């Protein structure tokens, strides 16, 4: 509960219609896209400017009120669940694209702009903003920056951090900082831009961003390859990269996902194969045509049982159907769908997928894996039922083990969903005690009162690392 005086001050800052605290309003901001996590805030506030954000944070620091910054709430690590109550600061009203600069190839915008709207706006000018997280039709740029979102095009084009050139952000004390800018080269001091990207709302509230743009590729070609065993599929991925081709997307489905997809969407793929690779190249027409043939040849040489190359864009869409239907197909099997993002160096993909399958059997769980094979970012997805306590415990134990294997293979606990609250207990496995200490130092330098998204990233005591038996 907020004290009446504070509530009145917050209402004064943003206007009473932009401060919400009816029971239904609080409930609606008590969750994000992460299953199993929910906590009520004490208020929801929707500022319209950086100045208002500054006033809100100043007041919150003064009264030690937690502030959780939230865009559309598509977070997958409980990063925007207000676990300690306080305020949810929703950036939805700050949603203007302020400038698209065709000479410097940048876009400057407010954090509440929807990612797909950025795509639409820049593509109309023949420009390209590559990050394309699965939730791009509703996720906000502010959220993408907070989580350093990835997507299907990560292999060739990188992730959100590679496209953020400058930021305006409000510190918990109410001061406004500006980092980076439109300069390609800029080494003036610590790289605070990169530090804020992926900081999950724990250091500052981003109020404006300048993004890097590329020229829009003119053409796109698609191919699909089926493999009888995981190892050949993994080898094909490694060979493709070794052949000095970087496909725009290189996606993967395992047998379980494929079966679910066939059952649900009937895309016409054989279900007795171990793995499907989906390959796309973009760029000039001639390069696409050349690369896609070469990719197909490599898959054949590595023992693909079948390779299909799309002749037209429409055929390409048809081939990508299997990948696009993956999440839906899996989500329909059971009430609760837990989507993880353990990531390994791409050479270790086959090993990782096989480990996931072994662990799923061991814990008697239904886990299917699909994901971004090209960048090693996998989505082991567990279909379960939150009402079955025993199964949920087994799921947690299985994911502990999956993360441990990923780390052993030189990978990480999260590729693109963030640590948030859901994986805070696993972070120390990845960064070690010294790494944790440095991160805590950074946190207190930005946020001495600890009001910004408390309990996230650094907030939970380290979990005991499981010993993996092989």
């Amino acid at each position, binding site marked *: 509960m907020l004290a009446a005086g504070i509530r009145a001050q917050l209402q004064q800052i943003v206007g009473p219609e932009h401060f*919400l605290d*009816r*029971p*239904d*309003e609080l*409930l*609606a*901001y*008590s*969750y*994000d*896209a*992460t*299953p199993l996590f929910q906590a009520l805030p004490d208020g929801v506030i*929707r500022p319209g400017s950086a100045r208002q954000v500054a006033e809100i944070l100043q007041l919150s620091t003064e009264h030690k009120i937690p502030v959780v910054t939230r865009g*559309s*709430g*598509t977070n997958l690590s409980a990063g925007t669940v207000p676990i300690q109550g306080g305020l949810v600061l929703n950036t*939805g*009203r700050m949603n203007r694209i302020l400038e698209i600069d065709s000479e410097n190839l940048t876009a400057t915008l407010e954090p509440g702009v*929807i990612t*797909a709207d950025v795509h639409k706006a820049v593509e109309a000018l023949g420009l390209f903003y590559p990050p394309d997280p699965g*939730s791009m*039709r*509703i*996720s906000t740029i502010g959220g993408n920056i907070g989580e350093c979102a990835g997507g299907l095009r990560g292999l060739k084009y990188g992730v959100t951090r590679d496209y953020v050139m400058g930021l305006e952000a409000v510190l918990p004390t109410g001061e406004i900082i500006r980092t980076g800018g439109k300069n390609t080269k800029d080494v003036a001091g610590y790289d605070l831009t990169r530090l804020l990207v992926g900081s999950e709302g724990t250091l500052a509230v981003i109020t404006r961003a300048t993004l890097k743009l590329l020229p829009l590729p003119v053409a796109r070609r698609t191919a699909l390859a089926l493999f009888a065993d995981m190892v050949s599929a993994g080898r094909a991925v490694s060979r493709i990269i070794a052949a000095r081709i970087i496909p725009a997307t290189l996606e993967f489905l395992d047998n379980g996902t494929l079966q679910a997809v066939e059952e649900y969407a009937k895309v016409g793929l054989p279900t007795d194969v171990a793995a499907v690779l989906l390959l796309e190249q973009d760029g000039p027409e001639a390069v696409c045509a050349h690369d896609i043939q070469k990719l197909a040849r490599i898959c054949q040489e590595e023992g693909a049982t079948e390779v299909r190359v799309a002749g037209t864009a429409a055929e390409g869409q048809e081939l990508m159907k299997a990948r696009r239907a993956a*999440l*839906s197909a899996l*989500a*329909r099997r059971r*009430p*609760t*769908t837990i989507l993880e993002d353990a990531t390994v160096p791409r050479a270790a993909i086959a090993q990782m997928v096989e480990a996931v399958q072994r662990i799923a059997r061991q814990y008697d769980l239904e886990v299917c894996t699909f994901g971004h094979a090209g960048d090693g970012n996998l989505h082991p997805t567990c279909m379960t*039922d*939150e*009402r079955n306590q025993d199964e949920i415990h087994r799921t947690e134990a299985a994911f502990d083990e999956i993360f441990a294997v990923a780390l052993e293979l030189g990978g990480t606990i999260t590729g693109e969903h963030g640590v948030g609250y859901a994986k805070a207990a696993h972070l120390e496995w990845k960064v070690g005690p010294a790494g944790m200490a440095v991160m805590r130092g950074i946190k207190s330098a930005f946020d001495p009162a600890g009001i910004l998204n408390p309990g996230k990233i650094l907030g939970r005591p380290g979990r005991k690392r499981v010993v993996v038996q092989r």
Partner: protein
Amino acid sequence: MNNLQEKELAEPATGMTPQDFNYSELLNCMRCGFCLPTCPTYQETGLEMASPRGRIALIKAAADGRLGLADITPQMDLCLGCRNCEPVCPSGVKYGALLEDARQAVAASKPRGPVRRLFFDVVFPRAGVLKLMGALLWLYQTSGLHWLAHATGLIRLLPRHLWEMDAILPRARAPWRRRHTVPAAAQTTTSTPTAAAAERRPRVGIFLGCVMEILFWETNQATIQALVAAGCKVVLVEGQGCCGALHAHAGEKPGALKLAKRNIRVFGATDVDYIVNNAGGCGAALKEYGHWLHGDPAWEPHARAFAAKVRDFSELLATLAPLDLPGLPDEKVTMQESCHLAHGQGVRLQPRHILRRIPGVTFSELAEPDRCCGSAGIYNVVQPEMSAQVLNRKMAQVKDTGAQTVVTTNPGCLLQMRLGIRRAGLEGQVRAVHIADLLAEAARQHG
């Protein structure tokens, strides 16, 4: 079938409570948020509780006892019920069904006011009262009262959205001219079904609907004529009435079931192959009769058989031989889809197919053809502000197409588009018509 008497069957308990909500279906929502960009009320407000994901969370919170029904009522009321969120849902959550349960619980928790009782217990269920309403409307429109009310400005004593609505209401047909006629050549005879089957003519029972029959009598007649022209045997089934959709959407499920049973009984007594309607909202409800009466051993099989025969007018027409149409003088046409036809019934290609076959028609898509226009049953009357916001967005897109004609497939949408045309000052430049009326027009044009 004849032994099924609505009155004999005990009415289901009206007392839907949050404990009765379909909890498994509520859990199916994985909260991914993919529905948010498709939701008109979320688009307008930017608020999570005004989104499908938010509303499901509210319904679940009520089922969990974390919120009371009074807490969730405003958002249940604000929902258009357009179900635009359903096709994009990865988990396939049946949002419309969850909403109906919640609304039923909300309605059951409150005393039923006199207006509610008048509409849901007296007006819609009774064919005689509906006819009377039609006659009164005709009297009001032709006696000079309508003219007087508008000329003197007295009508403006009503809230703006109501007098605007009155201004765009079509002219009701005189009470003594309301009998439908089936062109003689194709009129069904008492011939046996086998004889009919030998002729391979689909036998079609026309579902007339309540609002359609009062306000759009000509559209119903045009529907009959088009079906006959396409080679159907059309049957006028006596004793039918309102489909119950308005009841179901307003949380009046017992009333809805009563109406469903009446329709199932009277159509069940015929031997029609199809039950054809021309109102997307009614069609979606008719197709759901099997679900509505799920678990009722006496009625469920009949309800399923009924639902299996239901077709939208365009859905059936698209499968038949093309009509021989002289066509229209060059006309640019766009289509505002009925939410319950597009999302409730999944009928999207067929009306477009029919429009494209009309000589002289150039078809131009709206930017968001399947996004609700804000009509949503009686939504535009009970939620005028949000309805107007949603309509403004729609009209801007209509203007962008440059079309002279907006085709719809549902009476509510048709009235709403006419309201939108009036508000946007486009009267005389743009018109809104039902697809059956456009076909009738194309059939009439000669030379």
